[in-house]
């Protein structure tokens, strides 16, 4: 792992941890390589939630288990973290929260009494922000601007008090420092801080998404909120549907009429959408589906993370029809692949799924800006002629897609098997032709395959394969391991799988697949579709992501 330093804030729901995280990461992100991740309980108040802010000498995007500075924000904030505290951990807390059994070095931080002069305990968080900003020696002007922007809707008195609280917290941190190696690291380029949700949302906007209908379900809802906040400025019609079934059917209606729509949901909600997915398949109506995975079955662990729905996405929907599934592992890819999802859905008239998870969506990353591609906004909608046939059979399996009211033709689509015109038929020959027409699109889809990325030495003999949110984890391992015989293959398009992956695997005498699930779902697909022999699966399905330390130790056990 990279030389890094983890600050963990431990409190409970409703205490403002998220605001604190955003303020710290927004300011620290301008001066450090930084990454943050959170783990939360499924409750609105109480419990124990934590935020980790990881500073490093190199860019990092993985969770570190060992805590360097721990801030306890209530009297039950320590217990769940005791295995992550070591003898040099500094544990900051109100005196009354200490129970005496804590490991590490105790550091009394009387935030409540410090807040007394401002007349309200609400200033505790800003005091703490000041304290941490002081430790990190952050530019105070940047921090003050962030505070002012954050509280802009509140009274001038409250803003002034917050700024004073920040100063006070900052002064109180004197004498507490970071290790020299971390402190001296500065990165030259301006990074944008964003989480996986925002990256996916930006991708939707860049892909021309102008319609979203969804039903709230963690951890997918933040994308609906993102598009809702930008709906007015970007002409996105946002509708909270009465259920997931309505959501996907509305979105299919929107595409049919010429919009570019999407749904965002999690495994359970997607299960309800399966018949709609099948409808997209037979009517060849494009649709983009964001599936934010969390542990199942059923309600599972609503606020935790897992990669357990790959098979669901691959096999969802009755009948046989093509689909595309992307699993982005870092924000730039989430943006580009989501943008591309709208383009490919339109181009091939198929459902395209973006498979993310809670860990990816809720973690904050640094990303360098890049120019957006114009091509994905190209529309494939055709102006119809009087003799227009929606499902015209020809050499090409993709028939031109008209929309109602544009041109002289009529656009007839049916969930029953249909003729070229879109009329119900039970002609067996037509049925077979139409089924072939739909399935033949898969070979074209593979021509647009989003290539896997190889990271590490090209002359590797051990290959680690991962998809989605484990990207940052495996990348960090490859960047820091002493071994020169290991490479990482990041598979971003998990369906359909391209034969080129077989060549990557063939070179290795050991192929390891890393997944946050119990049954090795990608490993299974690699075997089934490409006959790739996976020698080892490294799996975790507790509901938590792998930590970098845990991953290193698991690898050590299996790497030959």
């Amino acid at each position, binding site marked *: 792992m990279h030389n890094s330093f983890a600050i963990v804030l431990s409190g409970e729901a409703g205490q403002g941890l998220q605001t604190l995280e955003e303020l710290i990461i927004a300011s620290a992100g301008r001066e450090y390589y930084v990454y943050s991740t959170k783990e939360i309980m499924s409750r609105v108040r109480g419990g124990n939630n934590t935020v980790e802010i990881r500073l490093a000498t190199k860019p990092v995007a993985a969770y570190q288990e060992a805590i360097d500075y721990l801030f306890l924000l209530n009297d039950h904030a320590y217990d769940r973290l005791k295995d992550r505290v070591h003898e040099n951990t500094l544990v900051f807390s109100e005196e009354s929260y200490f129970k005496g059994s804590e490991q590490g070095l105790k550091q009394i931080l009387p935030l409540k009494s410090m807040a007394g002069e401002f007349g309200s305990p609400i200033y505790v968080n800003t005091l703490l922000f000041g304290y941490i900003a002081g430790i990190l020696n952050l530019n105070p002007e940047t921090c003050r601007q962030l505070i002012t922007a954050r509280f802009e809707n509140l009274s001038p008195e409250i803003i002034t008090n917050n700024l004073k609280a920040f100063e006070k917290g900052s002064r109180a941190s004197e004498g507490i420092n970071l290790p020299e190696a971390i402190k001296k690291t500065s990165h030259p380029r301006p990074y*944008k801080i964003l989480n996986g949700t925002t990256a996916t949302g*930006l991708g939707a*906007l*860049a892909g*021309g998404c*102008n*319609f979203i*209908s969804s039903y709230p379900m963690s951890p997918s809802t933040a994308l609906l909120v993102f598009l809702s906040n*930008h*709906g*007015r*400025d*970007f*002409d*996105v*019609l*946002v*509708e909270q*549907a*009465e*259920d997931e*079934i*309505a*959501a996907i*059917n*509305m*979105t*299919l*209606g*929107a595409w*049919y*009429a*010429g*919009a570019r*729509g999407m749904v965002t949901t999690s495994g359970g909600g997607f299960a309800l959408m399966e018949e*709609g997915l099948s*409808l997209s398949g037979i*009517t060849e109506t494009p649709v983009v589906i964001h599936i934010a995975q969390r542990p199942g079955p059923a309600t599972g662990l609503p606020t935790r993370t897992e990669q357990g729905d790959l098979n669901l996405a691959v096999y969802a929907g009755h009948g046989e029809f093509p689909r595309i599934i992307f699993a982005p592992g870092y924000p730039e890819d989430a*943006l580009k692949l989501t943008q591309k999802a709208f383009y490919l859905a339109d181009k091939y008239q198929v459902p395209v799924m973006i498979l993310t998870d809670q860990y990816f969506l809720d973690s904050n990353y640094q990303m360098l*800006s890049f*120019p*957006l591609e*114009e091509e994905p*906004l190209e529309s494939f909608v055709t102006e119809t002629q009087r003799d227009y046939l929606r499902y015209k059979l020809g050499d090409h399996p993709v028939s031109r897609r008209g*929309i*109602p*009211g544009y*041109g*002289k*033709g*009529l*656009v*007839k*689509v*049916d*969930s*029953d098997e249909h003729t070229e015109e*879109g*009329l*119900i038929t039970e002609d067996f020959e037509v049925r077979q032709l139409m089924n072939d027409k739909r399935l033949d699109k898969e070979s074209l889809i593979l021509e647009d395959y989003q290539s896997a990325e190889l990271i590490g030495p090209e002359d590797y003999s051990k290959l680690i394969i991962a998809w989605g949110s484990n990207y940052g984890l495996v990348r960090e391992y490859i960047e820091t391991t002493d071994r020169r015989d290991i490479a990482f293959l990041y598979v971003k398009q998990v369906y359909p799988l391209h034969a080129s992956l077989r060549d990557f695997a063939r070179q290795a005498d050991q192929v390891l697949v890393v997944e946050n699930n119990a049954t090795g779902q990608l490993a299974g697909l690699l075997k089934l579709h490409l006959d790739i022999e996976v020698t080892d699966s490294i799996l975790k399905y507790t509901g938590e992501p792998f930590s970098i330390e845990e991953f290193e130790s698991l690898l050590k056990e299996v790497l030959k």
Partner: protein
Amino acid sequence: MKPFELNPNTDIAWCPGCGDFSIRKALIMALNELALDPGQVVMTSGIGQAAKMPQYVDTNFFNGLHGRGLPLAVAIKAVNPSLTVIAEGGDGDMYGEGGNHFIHNIRRNPDIAHFVHNNMIYGLTQGQGSPTSPVGQLNTVQVEGVINEPFNPLAVAVSLGATFVARAFSGDIPTLTRIMKAAITHKGYALVDIFQPCVSFNKVNTFKWYQEHTYYLDEGHDPTDRMKAMALAFETDPYPLGILYQTKDRSTYEEKAVVYQEDKTPLIHRRRDLKAVEKLLNA
């Protein structure tokens, strides 16, 4: 051949004598009397005998999944309000499988017409009880008689604030046509529950039965009186026919949608400004 009409040799998959034929005739008359362009009309439907209607009208259509005709219709109208959108299906499709969409789209008040063929039985699946089957009806599943109270679509619609609520009878094509025209031209969600006989599976609620157990609201009925409409919706045997309720005071879903507040251009004709996305990306 009139607009919306099909080649007369088209094989229509309904039973001979089915009320669907009369409803189809009335619908095509209504569309033509309104001088609508088939290219600017979209029909949506789910599954069932009634839901096959779009197949037999020469216009744009999306015949989707069982119960899901309404979500399609609402979204089509929302992204392109210049289209005339009609959702059509049967009592099982719209009140059973699609019941949640029925409830919540009344609340949305999209500017669509909603035609529901109500024959109090499942036809396509061959004679099971429907949400509107009367208690005691003997059929292929409820072999000792239906025990659940029938769904009352008109009372539900009036109570949820539907802006147009009517009941018609397939046996009276001129009146059905008139009510359909009023529903299509109504600004907002317009429900027409259409009584029809099922000649194959419902031997009780026959053509004659409907004639004997319904009556037309007289000219003096004030359709803006919501409480009166509610009382009428609860009337059974005889069942009132006509426009029970209509109000023009409520904005439609499309009018209320944020995307149409400053710009009335249909959503599908607007282009995404990639520079604006880049600006947000770099913010």
